[in-house]
């Protein structure tokens, strides 16, 4: 479905994830974060950048992987993105939602 985020037309999945990462901007990320009730800080952006790099490199994302990342520990990950940190941070990062085959 089409939506307007930060003044840009974007395509979103039914659960609100960007369909095409090339449409992502920091402003769009900020808007998506607001919908999740998150006010972005420099620390948030560092994590988002790391997630985008992982996806670009085809590395599987997992909470366990965060522990090995050296970027932040899991406690901080939960503090920055409360609830389902992986689900929420991937949404803000404009990358696909972690999913299974059905």
């Amino acid at each position, binding site marked *: 479905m089409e939506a307007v985020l930060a003044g840009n037309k974007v395509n979103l999945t039914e659960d609100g994830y960007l369909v095409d990462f090339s449409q992502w901007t920091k402003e769009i990320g900020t808007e998506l974060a607001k919908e999740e009730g998150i006010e972005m800080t420099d620390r948030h952006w560092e994590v988002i950048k790391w997630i985008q790099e992982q996806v670009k490199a085809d590395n599987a994302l997992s909470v366990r*992987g965060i522990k090995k990342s050296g970027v932040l520990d899991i406690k901080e990950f939960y503090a920055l993105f409360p609830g389902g940190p992986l689900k929420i941070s991937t949404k803000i990062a404009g990358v696909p939602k972690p*999913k299974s085959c059905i």
Partner: protein
Amino acid sequence: MKNLLILGAGTSGTMMANHLRSKLKKDEWNISIVDQYKTHYYQPGFLFLPFDIYTEDQVKKDGKKFIPNGVNYIQKKIEQIFPDENKVKLEDETLSYDLLIIATGCKIAPQETEGMKGKNWHKNVFDFYTYEGSLALRNKLREFKGGKMIVHFTEMPIKCPVAPLEFVFLADDYFTKKGIRDKVDLTYVTPLGGAFTKPKATAALGHLLSEKNIKVVTDFAIEKVDNETNQIVDYGGQIVDFDLLVTVPTNMGDDLIKRSGMGDDLNFVPTDHHTLQSLGHKNVFVIGDATNVPASKAGSVAHFASETLTDNILLYLDGKPLKQEFDGHANCFIETGKNKALLIDFNYTQEPVEGTFPIPGIGPLKLLKESIFNHWGKLAFRWIYWNMLLKGIPIPLVSRNMSKKGKKIE
């Protein structure tokens, strides 16, 4: 003579040996396949073994039977790949290759989660992704009188991502038939946002879990298994009690990939999504669960990939450009209990939808819908696996690339 070397004689390696031996001239190419283990397991059978639906004999055979004549079968441990030198070191000799196929699969890594492989491993904490785990679980279930049972998976990617769901459905059916379903509290625990994660499947199948009285806990990122209190604990503070935990641990590529410095964080080999050539070395190709391609880790995916890979290896040897062909096609039966199953057919970009398969408009199999016929299909697949799939015989009417015909795509 030139040397083509295949590492791993599982589903993918065995299929590639069969495909390539008939395509490459015997006076030009030696083909060798290396695997330290003698037994070839029918891994989809590990889902049925715990419920006494299959016996031990139905899920294992001597691997040698499926390696074609004219292929050198080497039963030795592989120590390390030296891709810059085109060499592979085995336990007591070093082989040189002109072309290498990595088909070393993936396996469970319970040691990645604190307490998982602890004192209760295979006592009240089980996997069903190994022959040993599946068999130990069968013996446990035979005497299980009731209590809290969790079916859980740790993180993606895992081999056959629907297997945990199938397991919980079959468990519901198993306890019902035993007349103790009311004494078993069944909970499905997933690290993802829901038991189903794709819109069409969620809409079509979301009712199955509540209908079967299976509780669902989502967004559960496991931190540890507590062997004193019999609980699983997640990083966000969620805790679930169990009497019997059936878990799918983290899945990782073989340690060999790590020893050879060829893998990512989970020991999967970076591989071109559409040609199956390794990103690191042009004369190294990767297939099946060993790759990092974003397709399901499943035998059907390996089967479709093996057809593209065979063509691409022949093109590579001819010095021609490779086909950008592989689309992540998967075709999987999903058991839902009570002798019914679903069928899903999808690829990298197309999510599973409803429809008919393999003949558009006719079927006889139904996509994303429960049917008894689909269940027969799943059971028939064991014969197809041993007699057609491993031998590289194409399955009639099912093409390597996913077809959109017969699918309800909006």
